[in-house]
């Protein structure tokens, strides 16, 4: 299926005084896509969202919605609506009138208006809350009302600024699934800002990882997880072991590389690495196995000692000191056949195909 790019951001930069918070951003988001902007606080993700909403104007560059240049359009003339981080429910009017707020110009009859509000409330599962005020709602309910108030306008794009940040863990996980289902059934483009990598991973079609005003990688969650483009992305998404490495030579797409703790290895060049690149070797904890004796199923076996064990319920993390390195390796298993305790000798085993070469 070919879908068109609904949002286009071209060469966009934004400075506040001397501080450049966004640096030459280029981004395209497809129609009906659940797109997340992920990054640590201060990375520019919220500023980018506010530029899309029209609350900030870029210092340079342009924004297009459906091929129309909206760069200098104020928020009230844009086909986008926003769910604010603190929900911004008007405290002086009740839920019904909050949801009606954006419909004033549509000249609806009382019956039509009532129907729209009712449907919006049904969508967020808060029927019967019409007469409540903001201070009579819980955090989760406010969040749903904010969502209903934005969606009743039938926007082309819904902008969400860390909307789940203030909710507790269980409610947040419920809302993640609910938001995702809502987005699928409505087919609206969602731009979702978050600093929580799990949240971005579970909900998004694609994620843009941002740091210091730059977009480092734009990919679907699996791609980002398994093929992070650089060290920052790999460390920001999930747990990963990063090992120092020294690139020796590249010949016929085979890289010879000396890895801390693993020695000299031959790896396939998937990422067009050139000899002058500074690289690290990375491997996810779940891609490593732990055993009492070396296991010939894997082409890499290294001796080590269990330093610490952390039990998380669905998985157990072992922190293993490699014999021939300072490095402590993270290994996770959902269930180990063999039992280990701290200070036991062990072997870590993995296939060299799971090793990722990552640029600095």
């Amino acid at each position, binding site marked *: 299926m070919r879908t068109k790019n609904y949002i286009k951001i071209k060469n966009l930069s934004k400075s506040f005084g001397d501080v450049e918070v966004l640096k030459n951003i280029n981004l395209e988001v497809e129609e009906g896509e659940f797109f997340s902007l992920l990054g640590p606080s201060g990375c520019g993700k919220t500023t980018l969202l506010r530029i899309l*909403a*029209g*609350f900030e104007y870029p210092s340079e560059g342009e924004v297009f919605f459906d091929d129309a240049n909206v760069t200098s359009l*104020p*928020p*009230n003339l844009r086909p*986008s*609506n*926003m769910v*604010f*981080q*603190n929900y*911004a429910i*008007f*405290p*002086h*009017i*009740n839920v019904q009138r909050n949801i009606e*707020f*954006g419909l*004033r*110009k549509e000249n609806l009859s009382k019956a039509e208006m009532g129907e729209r509000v009712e449907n919006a409330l049904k969508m967020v599962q808060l029927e019967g809350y019409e007469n409540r*005020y*903001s*201070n*009579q709602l819980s955090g989760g309910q406010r969040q749903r009302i904010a969502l209903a*108030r*934005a969606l009743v*306008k039938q926007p082309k794009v819904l902008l969400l600024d860390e909307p789940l940040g203030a909710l507790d863990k269980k409610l947040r996980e419920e809302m993640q699934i609910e938001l995702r289902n809502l987005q699928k059934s409505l087919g609206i483009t969602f731009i979702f800002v978050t600093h929580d990598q799990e949240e971005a991973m579970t909900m998004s079609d694609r994620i843009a990882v941002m740091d210091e005003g730059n977009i480092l990688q734009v990919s679907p969650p699996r791609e980002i997880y398994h093929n992070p483009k650089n060290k920052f992305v790999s460390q920001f998404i999930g747990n990963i072991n990063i090992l120092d490495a020294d690139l020796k030579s590249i010949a016929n797409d085979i890289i010879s590389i000396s890895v801390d703790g693993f020695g000299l290895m031959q790896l396939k060049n998937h990422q067009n690495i050139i000899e002058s690149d500074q690289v690290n070797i990375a491997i996810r904890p779940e891609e490593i196995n732990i055993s009492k004796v070396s296991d010939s199923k894997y082409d890499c076996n290294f001796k080590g000692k269990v330093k610490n064990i952390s039990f998380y319920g669905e998985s157990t993390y072992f922190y293993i000191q490699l014999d021939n390195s300072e490095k402590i390796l993270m290994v996770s298993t959902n269930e180990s056949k063999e039992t280990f305790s701290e200070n036991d000798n062990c072997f870590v085993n993995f296939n060299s195909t799971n090793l990722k070469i990552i640029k600095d």
Partner: protein
Amino acid sequence: MYNKNNTLFIYCVFYFAFLYIPVLLLPIFSFNDSFHMVFPLKGFTFDWYIQMWNKSRLHQALFNSIKVGIIASVVSTFIALFAAKAFTRYKVKFHGLSYGAILLPFIIPEIIIAVALIVIWTSMGLKLGLIPVTISHILFCTPFCMLILISRMEGFDKSLEEASMDLGENSFWTFWRVTFPLLLPGIIASLLLAFVISFDEFILAFFLSSSDQTLPIYMWSQLRFPKKFPHILALGAIIIIVTSLIVMTAYWLRNLGQGKKKDFSIGI
């Protein structure tokens, strides 16, 4: 464990006595059947109230004061509203300097303002009267109104206005649908405070009013005649009751239409 602290309790009793006993003497003596404000009380009478009711100059002074008070409070609240919006929502050039300049009438002694205004007004060849009094009261009340409205403006979340813009309203409608209703308790507080300040303001009115007396000037002028003194007590008693009613109304208005939210303080 809760420790009952008698010393603090006694302190509170003295404090409230200090605050309110002098004020309470006014209504008590206003019913006393004597020209002199001394104990013991002689007898009960409504005479002073009846006497007060029949003073046409008092009626005129009261009417003047209300007129000046209403105009001064509305105009200064209006000016303060725009100033508060500018100071809290936009980047104002020379922020500190202009903020200080607007609040300056706080610090300048009233008598200096009065003298300055009388010089300007008369040198322009204009007649003294209620107009310069009203102007001076606007000047004097605006900083108070501004402080109330700025704190109110700072107290509410900017994203509410953004949400309104986002939902399709321009800045004019955003002001009327979101900013104004949320500021309303502050606006009412500002109007009431400015009215009360103007209503009992003496120095500016004394210099600028000429023959158009406001109520404080009338009261002061009557104090020279001992026989006219008791009806001033009656007037004072009524003013105390009316002012209390105004404040209670403001409190009641403040809770109206806010759901059950308690954190909307009126800020007087």
